[in-house]
């Protein structure tokens, strides 16, 4: 049996409360590292159950325009993988319980050195990893070493993941399974909610892992709808866009950048929490 991470404990709590969780995505260092750290705390205050933190990369080939631009803002502000880990360390000084997942692409981790990265990430208080360009076929690269290091490796399943492939995706996945509700890039399109429900049910037939659903969740209403069918709802691009709109013309933090994000996430959290009432 695996060592339980903060992610495992949080899903146990959510299950006890009988509600779905809210997973929020922001890019580390967007628009700068200090504001980004404040935003992480604001997300927790607003009701986020799990934090997903993007590791910026120059070539994010599965991301849409909103998250691409967030990554470029973060890189322009001098964010590196090392600084992202330092920010998590700072966050942990006053928050010991909220699970943190790093999400990004493999190259910065590979260049950092897989073993060194896993040690540093664990020490900083990271609980799980989502690395978009590491399918099960490349598990020996990072997934298996991460598991040994006590980090969850969370994998994405998509509408192209059929019954034949799903077992391969589930093998070595831990923490939860992230179901991507559309074929496409982040921030694009709106899922067919009926199909999402069917897909989650199909996945549940293969695993006891919690299933989080993301891509195309844009507001409290769509968060509420998805929360009826999933163990957690992931929201990314629309939070990142809310933040962008608060920035000045140079892409620097505005006076209300943290508060507008907090307010938007409060609405999302409300949407997710009221979903139980709707289905109960």
């Amino acid at each position, binding site marked *: 049996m695996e060592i339980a991470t903060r992610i495992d404990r949080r899903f146990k709590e959510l299950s006890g409360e009988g509600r779905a969780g809210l997973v929020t995505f922001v890019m580390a260092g967007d628009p700068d590292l200090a504001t980004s750290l404040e935003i992480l705390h604001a997300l927790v205050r607003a009701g986020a159950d799990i934090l997903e933190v993007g590791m910026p*990369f*120059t*070539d*994010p*080939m*599965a*991301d*849409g*325009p909103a998250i*691409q631009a967030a990554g*470029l803002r973060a*890189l322009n502000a001098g964010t*590196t*993988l*090392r600084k992202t880990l330092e920010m998590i360390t700072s966050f942990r000084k006053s928050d010991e319980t909220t699970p943190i997942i790093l999400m990004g*692409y*493999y*190259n*910065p*981790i*590979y*260049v*950092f050195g897989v073993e060194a990265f896993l040690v540093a990430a664990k020490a900083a208080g990271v609980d799980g990893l989502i690395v*978009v*360009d*590491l*399918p*099960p*076929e*490349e598990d020996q690269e990072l997934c298996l070493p991460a598991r040994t290091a006590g980090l969850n490796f969370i*994998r*994405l*399943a*998509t*509408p*192209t*993941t*059929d019954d034949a*492939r799903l077992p391969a*995706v589930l093998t070595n996945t831990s923490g939860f399974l992230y179901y*991507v509700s559309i*074929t*496409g*890039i982040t921030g*694009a399109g709106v899922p067919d909610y009926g199909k999402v429900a069917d897909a989650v049910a199909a996945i549940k037939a293969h695993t006891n892992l919690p299933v989080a659903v993301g891509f195309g969740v844009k507001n409290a209403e769509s968060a509420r709808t998805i929360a009826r069918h999933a163990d957690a709802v992931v929201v990314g691009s629309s939070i990142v866009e809310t933040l962008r709109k608060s920035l000045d013309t140079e892409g620097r933090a505005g006076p209300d950048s943290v508060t507008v994000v907090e307010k938007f996430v409060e609405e999302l959290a409300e949407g997710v929490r009221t979903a139980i009432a709707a289905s109960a």
Partner: protein
Amino acid sequence: MPQESLNSYRSGPDERGHFGIFGGRFVAETLMPLILDLENHYEVARVDPAFKAELSYLLTHYVGRPSPLYFAERLTEHVREVAARAGDAGGAKIYFKREELNHTGAHKINNVLGQILLARRMGKTRIIAETGAGQHGVATATACARFGLECVIYMGAVDVERQKPNVFRMNLLGAKVVPVQSGARTLKDAMNEALRDWVTNVSDTFYCIGTAAGPHPYPAMVRDFQCIIGEETRTQMMASEGRLPDSLFACIGGGSNAIGLFHPFLDEPGVEIFGVEAAGFGLDKKHAASLAGGRPGVLHGNRTYLLMDEDGQIEEGHSISAGLDYPGIGPEHAWLKESGRVTYLSARDDEALQAFQLCARLEGIIPALEPAHALARVVEIAPLKPRDHLMVVNISGRGDKDIFTVAEHLEGI
């Protein structure tokens, strides 16, 4: 690498798409089933006589193959004069493999036709591709017109601006050219955008990658389609000289023309092989020489040599040639470098420009700026070889597309 030299340099990749540590399948889960499906279809097609016959027919009657292996007599005289001035009696005999005579003006069409026939077998109706200089885009648009397929070409906005004639050609051929505004707005960003399209349009779309890079099976598949260059060279050299060449030269961006020429000769220990990267303003300045100035990393579906900073962020390549202006290289080249079988050199912008002019004036052949990089090293190394040394350089494309770029630079000199 004693193990490789005991066996073969031609057996890669392994079943997981690895050439040593390079290659692999580093893609999003959405694309994994598509890539596995492509691999299965390709494995069936490549040994199917009907597929081979159809491709062969098109290569002969549509592309104009075989392309000639031409004795470059005046360039040979030139390098012998250079040798004589240095008090030496040498100077290699130089042959050009004339890929620039292919339909659409470059080697790109060899690979595109193979992939388009495969797409048709798979029932795909929509073709997407990335392009830098526009040569692969033109070849793809051409094949799509020929087979009545919808065609979308992603091209960095910067490249759209500097390669206008090719954009016009693609439009004439009925393709839709999408200028890519993300990132640095050049070839790597065009590839990112093509991958985003593919992730979105999984059911009907075939991604026709233009070089021997990307996730497995692309590097091996593109190489196989380009190997006709080396296979013909072998036969033609046997016919004209009665033996194999002594050395091969080709330019390298992603490296598809080079691997196509090199691969059939990798297990011939008597054949020296040279790849020439783009050194841009110089290897200590902005350049596009991933092997000379990069290190191993993971981008666009494969592990290979990349130009990047300390944090693993990808850096922009620079070359006068838009076709070499890519911060990575095909994974098989990365492996051939580490195994020592191929020697990788580089040529700067100014050296390529000089070779470009020399070739035009001595041979009446205007090469593309890409193979002009290979020519730059040929005119330097050929004088050092004996007269019976047979040297082949791949003229991978013609220079019509480059005359405005060259004119601009010559005015500046």
